[in-house]
């Protein structure tokens, strides 16, 4: 799978929350860099998790070189990382398509825009996709690995460009409310001009108050003329994501719920025509070999080794071993289920590590098991 990923421009890591997406994304990026590619790993997560996983104090909206020199060996690969700043990306997008300085300022200073670009989840997902677009155009990187945002629906971000352009397109309200379009008339003027929708607007106004409605209308009016540019970009990203230049990697944990969601995710990706490169089953507990020891024998051995209360200690050690067996069996079953659902091609297992893989040495440990 890794070999296959080296030939793609974009690697999109998806999966539900808590499966280890950020760690795996970082490890995949390191592996690709070790394979010789100039690689950047992108996270949308505002919680600085990628930075802490890479042992860096912080990341910004511009790619930063990860000090992974020794881990990269003699190859030509490089590892970079960036953390998406949704607001900055949105501002750039607006600047790119605004007709003039005035139109640009009008949007950037609109109160609705300021809340929308900073706070709303859908906008963030859209910006993740847009940032990918920028990085592809930038041309500096051979491989771009995206750690997708946490969402109830792990594929929300794929629909985000379409959702945003649809709302910017929202002609109904824009035409009705564009200041000046009805000669500066108030609610009454709208009613006269657009008898059918007038009732709707007055109803809306009753709910929102005139000012909020006016702000929304100003906001939408500000995007006038930009729709085409936005729509083309959304279309371009979608085409890229659907092409063989992209590879989707689904990350699954071995818990039953997570497994089911990963299978559903893989199926949906395939059904929608997105190129699925493989599935990574993360944190697989090994099954302890052999049978558990006889309790008295274990207690005797521990007493011989100087344990104070050997029987209690033996019982606790046996309990710890029993836990490992339960998890080992559960994960065996998870592997079997996953094989049955998606086949064994393109499936990589990452073992559970006794110590959590954090910072660069930890990420390197994970990268080492992602075989080429």
């Amino acid at each position, binding site marked *: 799978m890794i070999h296959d990923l080296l030939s793609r421009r974009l690697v999109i890591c998806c999966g539900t929350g808590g499966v280890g997406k950020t760690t795996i994304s970082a490890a995949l990026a390191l592996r690709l860099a070790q394979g010789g590619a100039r690689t950047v790993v992108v996270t949308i997560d505002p919680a600085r998790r990628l930075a802490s996983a890479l042992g860096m104090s912080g990341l910004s909206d511009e790619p930063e070189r990860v000090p992974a020199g020794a881990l990269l060996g003699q190859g030509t690969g490089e590892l970079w990382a960036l953390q998406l700043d949704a607001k900055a990306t949105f501002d750039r997008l607006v600047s790119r398509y605004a007709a003039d300085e005035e139109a640009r300022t009008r949007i950037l200073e609109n109160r609705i825009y300021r809340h929308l670009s900073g706070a709303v989840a859908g906008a963030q997902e859209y910006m993740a996709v847009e940032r990918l677009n920028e990085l592809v155009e930038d041309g500096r990187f051979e491989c771009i690995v995206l750690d997708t945002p946490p969402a109830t629906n792990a594929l929300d971000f794929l629909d985000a460009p379409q959702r945003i352009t649809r709302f910017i397109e929202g002609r109904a309200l824009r035409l009705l409310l564009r200041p000046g379009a009805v000669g500066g008339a108030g609610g009454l003027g709208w009613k006269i001009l657009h008898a059918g929708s007038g009732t709707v607007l007055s109803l809306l106004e009753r709910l*929102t108050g005139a000012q909020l409605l006016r702000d929304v209308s100003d906001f939408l009016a500000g995007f006038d003329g930009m729709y085409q540019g936005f729509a083309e970009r959304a279309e371009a990203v979608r085409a890229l994501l659907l092409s063989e230049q992209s590879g989707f990697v689904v990350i699954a944990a071995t818990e039953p719920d997570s497994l089911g969601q990963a299978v559903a995710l893989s199926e949906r990706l395939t059904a929608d025509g997105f190129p699925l490169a493989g599935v990574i089953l993360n944190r697989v507990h090994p099954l302890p070999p052999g049978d558990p020891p006889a309790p008295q024998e274990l207690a005797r051995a521990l007493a011989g080794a100087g344990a104070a209360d050997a029987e209690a200690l033996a019982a606790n050690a046996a309990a710890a071993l029993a836990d490992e067996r339960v998890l080992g069996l559960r994960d065996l079953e998870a592997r079997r289920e996953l094989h049955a659902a998606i086949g064994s091609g393109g499936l990589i297992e990452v073992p559970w590590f006794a110590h959590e893989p954090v910072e660069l040495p930890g990420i390197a440990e994970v990268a080492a098991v992602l075989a080429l």
Partner: protein
Amino acid sequence: MTTTGVPGPPLSQRRLRFVLGKGGVGKSTVAAALGLATARSGGRALVVEVAGQHRLSQLFSAGRVSEETATELRPGLFGISIDAERATEEYLAGQLKIRPLVELLTHSKAFHTFAAAAPGLPELVTIGKIWSLAIALREDGGAPVWDTVTVDCPATGHGIALLETAGNIEELAAGGPIRDQAARIQEVVSHPAATGIVIVARPHELAVAEAIEATQTMRGHGLPVAAAVLNGVHPERFSTDDAPALATVAEDPGPLGEAARAGLRHLERQEDDDAYRARLAAETGLPVIDLPRLVRRRMDLPALELLADALAAGVPGAEPVR
């Protein structure tokens, strides 16, 4: 735990609780266990799930939890699922009173454009619905319908957006019914006597880092964080005094060594857990409640009962003072 300097009464006395944390830390389980703790002490508990997660039905092996009315999952424990679209219609119906007007609005393109452009409208109707459940009074005598309302929030970023939305809208809309509504919601959600946010983490680096950051963000926005839960703590089976004997036996190549090595691994994790707990407590200033790691193939009701026990023991008066 008034000693920790968290403003407001203990969690037990706050009717509205929001359970928040990184994806996969066990928010649904903690929310359900908090509700169960109320129900077992004779109270009426409502657990709310949002954004079509349907985890409650899985936990209680019940049929799908309804979006319309509360479904009784266990005696005294009810669940409800909030769907933003339905909540919007309900809200409009309450405001406009006249059914055909509601339909006119929800079927119009202008309304959908507005709904898509107005930032946070789905979040606002969701939090509005939660608020109305928390303040609902019984028709006879006016006692509250629910002793506790516990919300299983979406993962951190989206969860915080949900909690901040009323404040944002209050700021955004200069006047009008939506602003008034948002202000009333914000008053309850930000009030430490009414609301308590429970931040959940697992003893892992990224989950703990996220919990600390989320706590600081929410405090910065005046939201009442009441407690932290560390979920999946390894039971205290070993002490460092046990290490030498375990290490000696771990040399054995057979089953004895296997058991001793499992013991040593467990001890290491115990120590990691202690370090994470200390860091969580120090950097959030919150009381930290431990929930034990339950090793089983699937979360089930008996497991949930164990967690409810642990919560009841960990939160002074996790059960409502009635």
